[in-house]
């Protein structure tokens, strides 16, 4: 029992601290690649602390949903973060649900965020919410198919079990089904975190914005919670991607040494994935909104093919 508590505590601290760092790092890398100086790596922390100290303006038309949404977004993202293995094969909260709980807790957070966008009755909020739901309606099945492909190999939807199996066969990612599933999940990651071919995270001045349109009415601590929650969600999805497909260095026991090695490997893998995201964001233009479903349809078909090919190849 104490082990579970220590494990949860460690992972919680890691989750809360690494998530803004990762967002900041992606911003900095992107700026460097585009020949700008860009903000420092720690800028995301500063933003969050600044917002937490500010007062906030709540629209007169807003109901309790407006205030509940930031807590739901932050809470679900953190809870999901405790359910996936980060540095060890054993996730602290692998008690219930497995991968289905992960997908639907994330969906719950998104649902409340969309409600929060609608709640104030501003036209931009409604626009953003409707777009977010359109995209997630296709991204979610694609994500499920890709994850089921991995779950089939492990004979379990429990993420800890999947990680344990994965560690024993590290080179499995060369199988076609795994590569297809990875490609599908990568597209879903881009869509879910609002990165460039789908949404532009750097601006809220565009008519095509999605995430920013929903949170336009939020300010102060609520905005800080939402932004922090969004970066945790990004970290969670990236962790899911690197640890299910490239399980190198995941430690399976509890000595200081293996946990340290696991942490180092984990951070290195996250860094590489961040570099990949930065490359994709820099080398692509934002898609027209009506073309986004096409991209996600490709992800869906890739996921379906991955699932089919586990049976055949």
């Amino acid at each position: 029992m104490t082990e579970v508590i220590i494990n949860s505590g460690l992972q919680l601290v890691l989750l809360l601290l690494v998530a803004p760092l990762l967002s900041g790092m992606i911003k900095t890398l992107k700026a460097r690649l585009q020949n700008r100086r860009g903000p420092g790596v720690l800028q995301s922390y500063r933003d969050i602390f600044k917002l937490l100290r500010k007062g906030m303006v709540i629209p007169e038309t807003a109901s309790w949903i407006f205030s509940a949404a930031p807590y739901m977004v932050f809470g679900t993202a953190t809870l999901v973060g405790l359910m996936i293995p980060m540095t060890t094969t054993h996730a602290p909260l692998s008690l219930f649900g497995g991968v289905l709980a992960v997908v639907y807790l994330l969906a719950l957070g998104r649902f409340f965020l969309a409600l929060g966008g609608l709640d104030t009755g501003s036209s931009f909020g409604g626009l953003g919410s409707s777009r977010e739901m359109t995209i997630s309606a296709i991204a979610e099945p694609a994500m499920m198919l890709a994850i089921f492909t991995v779950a089939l190999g492990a004979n379990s939807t429990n993420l800890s079990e999947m990680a344990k199996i994965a560690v024993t066969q590290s080179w499995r990612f060369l199988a076609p089904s795994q590569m297809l599933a990875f490609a599908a999940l990568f597209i879903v990651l881009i869509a879910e975190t609002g990165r460039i071919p789908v949404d532009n995270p750097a601006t809220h001045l565009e008519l095509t914005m999605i995430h920013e349109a929903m949170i336009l009415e939020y300010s102060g601590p609520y905005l800080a919670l939402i932004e922090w929650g969004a970066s945790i969600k990004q970290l969670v999805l990236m962790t899911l991607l690197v640890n299910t497909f490239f399980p190198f260095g995941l430690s399976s026991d509890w000595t200081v040494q293996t946990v340290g090695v696991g942490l180092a490997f984990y951070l290195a893998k996250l860094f590489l994935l961040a570099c990949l995201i930065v490359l994709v964001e820099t080398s692509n233009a934002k898609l027209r909104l009506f073309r986004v479903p096409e991209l996600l349809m490709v992800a869906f078909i890739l996921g379906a093919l991955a699932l089919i090919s586990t049976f055949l190849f």
Partner: protein
Amino acid sequence: MPFVPNPELGNRIITLMAALVLVLQIAAVGQRGIVSSIRIFAVQSFLLGAIAAVIAYFNHASHIYIAALLTVFLKAGLLPRLLERLVERIGIRREIEPLINVPLSILIAGGLTLLGYVVAESFYHPEQTSAQAALGHNTLAVAIALFLIGFFAMVNRRKALTQVLGLLSLENGLFLAAISLTYGMPLVVELGILFDVLVAVMVLGILVFRIRETFDSMDVSKLRKLRE
């Protein structure tokens, strides 16, 4: 001791490349630009040539090397070059206009892939085949899927040039089916098919150019005007 290639490894490499070929085919269905479709076809043909070379290496069938080389030279080098020149001469930079919209096309392509797998399942008897034949056997499903999607691409498109691309990817499917079923056809047959396709594309290229000159468009549905 002579080096004995491990057939398990060969199987893995072939499966991986076949999966890539399939992904490229589906990407081609989702593609709008005509030049990028041609490039996708070129990469796909190159991978096919590579698959043929791997089969040749693991089965010690040296005549397949020739087929592989010819595939790479003709289908990944010469044909795309010809088609790109044709595109330049006609001066089209416009997007491909499919009859069915792109998301639905991609879904249909996925469905056809599934169909390919179902059909190929009935051919699969691992207990009866020798180790040699088993190599690349599981690519039959991919080959049938390529074939079906190539057909679909031809039906789905209006412009003559893009239909030619559909025909070419259909032929890629045939090639893959041939090497996966027979682990190496006689060289004469391979050569015959290859040059057949080459001549077909040349003739079709000239035809496309003429259609364009006569009708000011490559839209084959306008050919109905031939009825007087």
